[in-house]
Structure formats: structure tokens, C-alpha cells
């Protein structure tokens, strides 16, 4: 009867026992880039299923904004965006998987906070999606504001910033609440759908995505309040700064490509462009690839194989998808948003 062990989640236990018995040299290997090139594929930790960010499509391929970031790294580092092995992780497992070296990069709608950055042995490299925590309730409950949730039972995913923000929100208002937290997302949604909770709370993007899993999505409404800042971004293991640099600049090149107007369709003509910014990004001027330990066309391949950030956003979350998420604060800074690619020069 070992089923009880399963609840400890094999990854956490594995990581702990690895930590106990593995020789120190094996854990502290710093050359992540070399390891990945030798291995031939990137290990990318993603959400187990969050439509628009990372979920398997009808053919079983992983798609989404978080997935596209890993594809961008693979395109830059391995010259092939398909050379990624996705590891679906629960909220609880994600950091241990990164710490233990099971994944090279964590791209799993993860909020960048000081405690995570400073005490978990990892480094965040940027923000792929500016989000905030919201609430969803049943339409027939006639609740129009999150301030009217006094006494409500709220369903959340265990081990998230959501769990803490929720407590803060009710503490600040001096209201009562009951929290019901599940380890897996699907069980949170199932319990809310079964009427066990009055409200369901997570990042607002997650609410849009999970609403489609409910029996009657139209019976539910997302409340206007955003109760927290949730900058979601990828993270790498602490201690390999060269690899962190690659992860950071892949994200910036991905955003910069949008700012420069380079798209998947037009990138082949970009090398002939007179614009020095474009010439630097596609690698005909400057030697930024070499500085990162990559070849000159690393950034160009991101756009060619994955598209720029804006294209990926539209394809996975935008108006043409079921989610229909408005780009809002995730627009580029010049369009009034918060996405501000650092200069590639």
C-alpha cells in the first residue's frame, strides 16, 4: 500500500532523496547551456493544463504563451523550436523540479515575488504576462463586487500566491471567509462547479481560461476587482548566470521583435533592412550571439520559428481564440502597456 506516498508528489520526494544521496558535484553543475546542447533538447516545466498558456492541443502538442517561450529558447539555443520536452507540473511541484535540475527553465504562469527570488534558489528573468488576481462567481448569486463576499467559501489552488492574497484581502476588509484549497487545478474547478464554493479565485487570465471548463460557462461572471499584482514570468536555477542571461535575452528579443515590427512572415526580408536595430536583432551587425555563447542568428530564429511576442499572444490568448483576452497592460510600452523590451545593443 504505497498509494499514500503518491500524495507527497513523486517529484518532491525524488528531489529530496536526490539531494540526500547524490554527490555534490552532480548537483552543482553550472554549465546548463552545454548540458542542453549535448542532450539535444530543452527540459521545460509548464502548467498541467491552462488553456492559452500551456495545454496539449487535439494532436497532443503543447501550445500556449508559456510553451512558446520555451520554444523560443529552443529555437535560439538548439536551432529548432520543436526540441523541447515539456514537464507538466503542479503548483506545488514546480520549484522543486527546477531546484533538483529536472527542468532547465520554469515557464509556468509563476508570480515573481521577493521570497521566491531570494529563498528558493532560483532567478526570475523577466515578465511574460502582467496579471492580477480576480474572482469568479455564479451569475445567479447577483454579486457584483468582491467586497460583498463576506462569509463566502472560496476555492483556490494550493501552494500559490493566490492563497495568500485571498487571506490578505479578507483580512484587510475585516471580513470572514472559508478557504478550500486543492492540489490540482482540475479539482478546484470541479469543486466550484459542483457548488462547493461561492467563488473561485486565481489570476484573471486563469479565470478566463478555466471558465471554459465549467459545465455552463455563461452562468458565471468574473468580478471587476483585481486584488493583487501578479507579474508572471519564467525562472531558472540560481548559480548559472550565463544561462540566466540567455533566458532573459530570449524574452527581450521576443518582445523587441514585436516592437521592431518583425513578424514570422516578414523576417526573411529583415536582413536587407537598413534599420540598424533590425540589423542587430537578425545578427548581421554586432556579435550579441557570441556574447551569449550562441550563433548570430539566434534571435532571428525565434521570430522565424515561433513568431514575435504579439503574434504568440494573439494566437494563444487573443480575439481569435476562445479566451478572447484583451491585451491590456500586456501591450508594448509604446502602445500604453507595460511590456518594455530592454535594448539589444
Amino acid at each position, binding site marked *: *500500500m504505497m*498509494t*499514500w506516498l*503518491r*500524495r*507527497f508528489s513523486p517529484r*518532491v*520526494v525524488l*528531489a*529530496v532523496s536526490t*539531494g*540526500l*544521496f*547524490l*554527490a*555534490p558535484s552532480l*548537483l*552543482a553543475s553550472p554549465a546548463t547551456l552545454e548540458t542542453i546542447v549535448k542532450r539535444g533538447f530543452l527540459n521545460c516545466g509548464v502548467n498541467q493544463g491552462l488553456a492559452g498558456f500551456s495545454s496539449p492541443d487535439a494532436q497532443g502538442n503543447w501550445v500556449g504563451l508559456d510553451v512558446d517561450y520555451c520554444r523560443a529558447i529552443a529555437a535560439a539555443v538548439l536551432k529548432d523550436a520543436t526540441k523541447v520536452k515539456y514537464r507538466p507540473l503542479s*503548483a*506545488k511541484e514546480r*520549484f*522543486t523540479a527546477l*531546484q533538483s535540475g529536472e527542468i532547465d527553465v520554469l515557464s509556468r504562469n509563476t508570480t515573481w515575488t521577493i521570497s*521566491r527570488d531570494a*529563498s*528558493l*534558489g532560483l532567478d526570475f528573468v523577466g515578465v511574460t504576462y502582467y496579471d492580477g488576481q480576480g474572482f469568479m462567481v455564479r451569475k445567479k448569486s447577483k454579486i457584483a463586487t468582491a467586497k460583498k*463576499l*463576506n*462569509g*463566502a*467559501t472560496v476555492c483556490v489552488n*494550493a*501552494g*500559490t500566491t493566490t*492563497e*495568500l492574497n*485571498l*487571506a*490578505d484581502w*479578507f*483580512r484587510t476588509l475585516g471580513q470572514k*471567509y*472559508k*478557504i*478550500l*484549497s*486543492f*492540489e*490540482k487545478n482540475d*479539482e478546484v474547478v*470541479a*469543486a466550484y462547479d*459542483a*457548488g*462547493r464554493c*461561492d467563488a473561485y479565485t486565481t489570476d484573471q487570465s486563469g479565470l478566463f481560461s478555466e471558465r471554459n471548463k465549467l459545465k455552463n460557462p455563461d452562468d458565471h461572471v468574473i468580478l471587476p476587482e483585481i486584488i493583487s499584482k501578479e507579474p508572471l514570468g519564467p525562472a531558472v*536555477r*540560481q*548559480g548559472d548566470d550565463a544561462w540566466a542571461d540567455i533566458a532573459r535575452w530570449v524574452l527581450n528579443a521576443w518582445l523587441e521583435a514585436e516592437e521592431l515590427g518583425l513578424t514570422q512572415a516578414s523576417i526573411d526580408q529583415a536582413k536587407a533592412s537598413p534599420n540598424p536595430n533590425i540589423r542587430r536583432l537578425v545578427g548581421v551587425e554586432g556579435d550579441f550571439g557570441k556574447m551569449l555563447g550562441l550563433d548570430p542568428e539566434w534571435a532571428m530564429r525565434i521570430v522565424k520559428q515561433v513568431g514575435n511576442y504579439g503574434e504568440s499572444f494573439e494566437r494563444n490568448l487573443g480575439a481569435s481564440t476562445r479566451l478572447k483576452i484583451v491585451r491590456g497592460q500586456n501591450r508594448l510600452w509604446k502602445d500604453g502597456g507595460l511590456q518594455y523590451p530592454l535594448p539589444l545593443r
Partner: protein
Amino acid sequence: MRKPLLIQIVFALVIAIGFGWAALNVAGNLERQGIASGFGFLSSTAGFGIISSLIPWTETSSYGRALVVGLLNTLLVSSLGIVLATILGVATGVARLSPNWLLAKVAGFFVELMRNLPLLLIIFFLYFGVLRLLPSPSESLSLGDVIFLNNRGLYVPWFFSVPELDGFDFTGGLAITPEFIALLAALVLYTAGFIAEIVRGGILAVPPGQREAALALGLSRTQMLRMVILPQALRAIVPPLTSQYLNLTKNSSLAAAIGYPDLVQVFAGTVLSQTGQAVEIIAITMGVYLIISLLIALAMNIWNERTRIIERGAA
């Protein structure tokens, strides 16, 4: 005598050195990777809520208190589970041997069903299956307007306080959550299936002459069971029963799947995620389960010893 002793000492030393090396290795690796370590986190503020607790809990309580809250919830569901599973298991085991054909078959069907389904499936079935059937708080099923049942749980009067609908939910009285009911019911049903077989085996292990002698003395079937068969059967029942009690306690950690705040859900789940100190937390959790299990085993061994002595005296 001397040589074996030396071997024992060397062996113990090797093990001690092995553990010492592992501990140093962990500490070194954690520091190198910049991961927080140590047990200081136990006194930090937790900042999250817990739906049900046997001791007062607020968001400003410490992680150490969260450990106690989780532990008490584990002990609550395990101890109630052990008592109820024993009652149901013994009844089913005896029923399986009943001369009443229908009763024996129903008991047999129950045992086979429970022993051959995965426990997690039973938990999910009871939780989500039953939850969907129950009404919302405003449409609660009620018994005499003092006991209420809805998809938030079962509400019963408790110490002169009667449950009352107030906004989203009932206040007052004692609220028993659906998570607790589903987990307890699943553990009881599942374990009772195994206990029934142990009881049946124990009864069958009593020589048939004992039964015949009891009947010849004119004892009724119930008297025979209670005074002759069961006391002797206990000898064969208690050791495997210990394993079932241990299993039930450990299986209660499946609570995390349906959000019952047990030790694993609260401590090895939420606290682990919020602090990221996996090594310390998993070690504490394993230690706590080990202590609970050893205590159960100890109690059962004492009981086993007693049943044995009584048997010898009677013979």
C-alpha cells in the same frame, strides 16, 4: 559472541556515517544553490487560511502551528476511521459467514467491491458524486429545522447553539465539511473490506470442534460467537489488523486530493510551497507519520500480547 558484536558495531557506525554524510551533503548543496534551509521557518507567520481546525487558527499563526493543525486533523480522521472501520469490518466479516444466504452474499459483494477498487477512486466518487447531488445552502435539506444538509456540509446543533442560515452559509452549531465526510467514509468502507476478510479468516481458523462443542452446550449463535469463537479468533486477527490500522492512517494523506486539511495537505502541501523548504518539511512529515505508526503498532502489540496470554490461560 564477540565477533558478531564487533560486526554489529561496525555496521552501526557505517550507517551513522552514511546519514551524517547525507545530512552534510544536503546542507552544502542547499547553501550552494542559494536555497533557504534550517527550521527557523516554523516560527514565521503563515499568512494563509485553513478551512477547519481543532485549535484556534488565524492568518497570523505560525507555520509550526499549521503543522499541529494538520496533525490534529490527520489524527481526527484516522482515529474515527479506525473505530468505524473496525465495527463495520467485524460486522461484515461475521455476516459473510452467516447461514443467511442473502446476508452472506451482500457482505461478500461489499468486500470484493471495496478490496478491488483504488482508494483514490472511492474518495473522488464519494466527494464529487455526492457533492453534485446536494442542494445549495439556501435550499438545504433539514430535519426539524435544527439539522441541515447541503453542499457545504452537515450542520448539527452543538452545545446549545443551533445552526442558522446567514448570508452565504450557516453559522452556529457544528459544521462537518463534505471533505471530512467523504474522506472518512471512503477510508472506513475501503479498510472495512480488508478487516472483514481478516475477521473471517480468524473465525475460520478456530477449530470446528469449538463451534460444535458450543452448540452442543446449547449456546445461541450470538452467544457462541461472542463467548467462544471471537475470543479465540482474536489471536489470529490482531496482528494483520495492526497493518490495516497503519494503512488507514497513512491512506488518510490522500486527503490532499479533495482539500481536507490534513498533515500532508496543510504542511507537506501549502507550507512546503510557500516556504520552499522541501527537505526539512518532508523530513518532519515522514518523522510524524513514523511516530504515529509506531504508537499504533505499540498499542496493538500490547493488545496482541494480552489476547495471547488469555488464550493460554484458557487452554
